[in-house]
């Protein structure tokens, strides 16, 4: 609830939704340090539909983890929705993920034993909503992806495309500031993959902010803006 309220009351400061300044990330893998990001500056405005492309090992996964608040930068600044998240504690990051970010993963990552309704309710559970409110909002989110009638099903009773739609519903349910999709079509056949991209297009048309990480130039071509990462630096936009 509070997340929603914050977004609505957020004055237009002119500042971008996402602001990265000179972000670096260094992994210490034994003897040699690996510099995954070497000073990245990015600004993404509210309502933008952006793809991040790059070959594997380019730092695009690291970029995604930092954008998604799953990891913190080694140095540099990261403002998300007006909050400085670069040096937050794990607990605070969990709250930010819960309220401001909706994830869509390549492998869907649904809880296999829970119904799809429970799966979609999950972020609301950790936000502390009461079960009646959770159910109502989860059903709304399922409606947006056209799966409201299957709410009692378990993930293994659904096709891959349907599972990814459930995951999208889960990403939407908390009304996040940012939807972060990591290779969302990677585990789907081409036709189903395009259906999922269509859903993202619709969401973008409804002013959702979406960052889509992909290695597929064809998919990247459908977004308004493309950020290409090579060797831990932004090569082109």
């Amino acid at each position, binding site marked *: 609830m509070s997340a929603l309220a914050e977004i609505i009351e957020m004055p237009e400061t002119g500042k971008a939704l996402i602001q990265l300044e000179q972000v670096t990330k260094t992994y210490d893998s034994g003897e040699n340090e690996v510099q995954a990001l070497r000073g990245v500056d990015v600004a993404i405005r509210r309502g933008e539909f952006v793809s991040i492309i790059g070959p594997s090992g380019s730092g695009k996964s690291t970029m995604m*983890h930092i954008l*998604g608040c*799953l*990891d913190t930068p080694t140095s540099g600044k990261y403002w998300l929705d007006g909050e400085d998240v670069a040096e937050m504690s*794990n*607990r605070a990051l*969990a*709250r930010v*993920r*819960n*309220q401001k970010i909706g*994830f869509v*993963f390549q492998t869907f*990552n*649904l*809880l*296999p*034993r829970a119904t799809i309704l429970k799966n979609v309710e*999950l*972020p609301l*559970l*950790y*936000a*502390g*909503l*009461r*079960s009646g409110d959770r159910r109502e909002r989860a059903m709304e989110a399922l409606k947006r992806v056209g799966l409201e009638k299957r709410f009692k099903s378990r993930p293994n009773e659904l096709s891959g495309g349907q599972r990814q739609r459930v995951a999208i519903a*889960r990403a939407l349910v*908390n009304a996040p500031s940012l939807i972060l999709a990591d290779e969302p079509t990677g585990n789907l056949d081409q036709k189903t993959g395009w259906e999922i991209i269509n859903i993202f297009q619709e969401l973008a048309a409804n002013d959702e902010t979406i960052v889509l990480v992909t290695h597929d130039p064809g998919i990247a071509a459908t977004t308004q803006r493309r950020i290409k990462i090579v060797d831990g630096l932004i090569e082109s936009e």
Partner: protein
Amino acid sequence: MILLESIIDGIRDIKDHFGRTMLQLVGIILGAGSIVATFSLSVAGKAASMEYYKVSGGIQKIWIWNQPTGKVTLDAKALASKGLTYADAMAIKAQAPDVDLVSPVSQQQMTLSYGKLEKPHNVMGILPAYSPMNDVHVTNGRFISDQDVETAARVVVLGTERAEEFFSTDNPVGKTMIIGGAGYLVVGVQDEKYFSFDQKRNVMRWMNKQMYIPITTMMTRKGEPVSQGKVSIMNARMKDVKRHKEAVEQIEGVLQRNHGVKDFEVLSRVANLKRNEANNKMYDMTFMICGIISLLVGGIVVMNIQLASFKERVREVGTRKAVGASPAQIFFQFLSESVLVSIFGGFLGLFVGRLFTQGITSLIKQPAIVTPSTLINAMIFAAGTGLVFGMYPAIRASRLNPIEALRTE
């Protein structure tokens, strides 16, 4: 809210992996079961002991015996020392301030007859104090009175088995029977004494075979002057259990002064009781330790299986973290699962404990009392096991790095 969800999750987990859960819980079930059994048997044992002490004269009872002294022959011993006498009893009553009742007994084998039946039996010469001392009551007629003692009256009180033996179903009170060649008026029949630890054997039955005459009558019969009359056993009652040592010391002091030698033995039931209590504690401890060991083993199994299931669920934990579960929320989720599963095990353990107690009860004829506090104790132990051993897997889960967790296949 999270807790409730975790509980629902936990119940689903028990249902989905029923076999695994049961395996996981064997230790906890047996542990809780043996705790129930221990407490039930111990509670019942204590209750039975207390009841037995009550019917046999209470814990304030003190025994005073003649003590055979070494290798001296019986005749020589008799010459050397008078042994316990009626005068000793009176001295104890007068001089031991922590003693409120003294009951000396003088016994002799005598021939009894009524009608055609003639039999030798042990007859006890007693004081009226015998009745409160030994929890003896007479409803049919009356017990030996002070007046009977003063006048050395020829009156007798019969135990139920003696009454039946000589008088069958007739009421013996008011009838005269011949004891040692003289006529005695039957003035009362002692109420039947009954106590059983196993609902089978009456451990007080020997008292139903007794018969009592005034101690003065007995001594006159034996041709002894009353004050020097020999006493085979004496009981005394202390005023206050807390001062049991003092009471025993006072008695020993009086007897030592009167006899000049220690040819007696004084034993208080409190001392006995203390020893028994120590023994009981040993048994309790042994059983408890078995129960606790089972619970420990059970706890380790819970921990292992919880760790294994946690490895299966690394991705799930990663997902939960990605959508915003805080470390604390993950910690409580895992911990509440362990506790829930353990409580479930403890609950099953209560039934197993019931079976244990019933088995033991029918095997060794020991009573068992299952009290609510016993059940609550067992449950608390089981839940505690889950709490302690669930801690480590829960901490591991809560510290999991979400990026690595999501990468796990």
